[in-house]
């Protein structure tokens, strides 16, 4: 397969950046999107052009490092998949593929397709945890949690923190990310003591970081590699309104 790539190139955070075009040839349909970019990078290096910087690590869809906007869709056209799990067989031979970094004020570009997503870490730091010191935990089976509750919490906890929700949201909102963590901990009995304070602090932090607001368009849910439901956003709204009214 052959493709024409239009890719965002930006040397540093200060650089203005521009779109550049590259052809890639002899791509196997079994390659992942990132492996295709590897091939491009080998090519570029051979030609003496600096290779493209893009974030990646585990390449099996769990670390959340990869962060590519492919033809206007976060992680590309394949549902429930990160870019590292997206294979070239999903594209047509000869396609033009536009690859851009996540775009959000809260995610400044560091280089090419690499952005700074530390704002998401700071949201968790604001309260996305259960305050239990090592050693003070009770016997694990002393706390019974129904299978349904546990599974629901797991659905929310499955978030990989990639930021695709922010990237795809028309308003660059981090509601789905924040809601997933708030819901995971609010659902569990362990999370009850800090429940109200947690949601208030996390939302305040989210707002401070410069993310946009949710307008219920649900683009986040559509691109989430872990298919986290927007019903968790409603849950977070509920948690917040309850926390504010008590």
């Amino acid at each position: 397969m052959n493709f024409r790539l239009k890719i965002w190139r930006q040397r540093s955070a200060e650089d203005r950046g521009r779109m550049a075009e590259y052809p890639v040839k002899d791509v196997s349909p079994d390659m992942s999107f990132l492996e295709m970019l590897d091939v491009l990078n080998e090519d570029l290096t051979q030609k003496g052009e600096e290779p493209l910087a893009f974030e990646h690590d585990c390449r099996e869809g769990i670390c959340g490092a990869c962060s590519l906007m492919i033809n206007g869709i976060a992680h590309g056209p394949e549902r429930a998949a990160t870019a590292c799990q997206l294979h070239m067989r999903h594209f047509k031979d000869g396609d033009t593929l536009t690859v851009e970094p996540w775009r959000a004020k809260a995610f400044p570009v560091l280089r090419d397709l690499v952005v700074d997503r530390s704002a998401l870490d700071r949201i968790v730091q604001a309260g996305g945890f259960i305050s239990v010191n090592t050693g003070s935990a009770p016997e694990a089976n002393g706390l019974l949690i129904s299978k349904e509750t546990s599974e629901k919490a797991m659905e929310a906890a499955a978030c990989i923190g990639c930021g695709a929700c922010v990237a795809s949201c028309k308003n660059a909102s981090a509601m789905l990310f924040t809601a997933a963590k708030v819901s995971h901990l609010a659902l569990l009995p362990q999370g009850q003591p800090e429940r109200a304070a947690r949601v208030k602090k996390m939302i305040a932090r989210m707002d401070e970081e410069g993310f946009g607001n949710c307008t219920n368009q649900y683009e986040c849910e559509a691109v989430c590699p872990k298919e986290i439901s927007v019903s968790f956003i409603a849950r977070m709204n509920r948690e917040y309104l309850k926390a504010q009214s008590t």
Partner: protein
Amino acid sequence: MCKEFLGSSVGRKAVVGVTGFILFGFVVVHTLGNLQIFLGRDPLNAYAYKLQSLPWLLWPARVFLLAVLLVHLWISLWLAVENRRARPTPYVFKDTVQATLASRTMVMTGLIILLFIVYHLLHFTFGATNPEFFHLTDAKGRHDVYAMVVLSYRNYWISGTYLLAMFFLCLHLSHGVSSIPQSLGWNDERWDPLFKWAGRAAALVIFMGNSSMPLAAVVGILK
């Protein structure tokens, strides 16, 4: 608390939801009231007369609705400005997976509705745009609302404007109404399809109800 609440994205969204719900409620009542036009001249004019004769109810209601409208507008625009700022560099290639047209045009449809409200008030409440239809009285000496509406709607430009406005209102409501339970945290996976369906159905019913009047006048059902 109020400052924290209004300062937060979720709090402000809730305010938009609540004010939107009130405005939607008004639209429903207003539509039902107006649909009395199909009962004939007398019931409609009697209804209008009744409302006018209750100033202690009418004026507080008007002030309240205006306040709600302004809050809805102010908070929504504030959010919208923030939303624009949240992505200073746009994507070169833009695409959408599942966001509806209605959801993506809320600010535009909202502002069009605002313009329409101004026109609608000038037209039917203050009689500024078509005074020739405004000063008619019926056989009982009451303000002839029926004649004012029917005569106005016979003008294609006016009925066309109303139809177009109702289309935008419908678009706005179809997203807005189904969003209310989400923003206020009532939604969950079980209810979500119902809320989505109900929001769209409500918008469509409002559209059909309101557009039936100019259409009926144009085709001569209302005389």
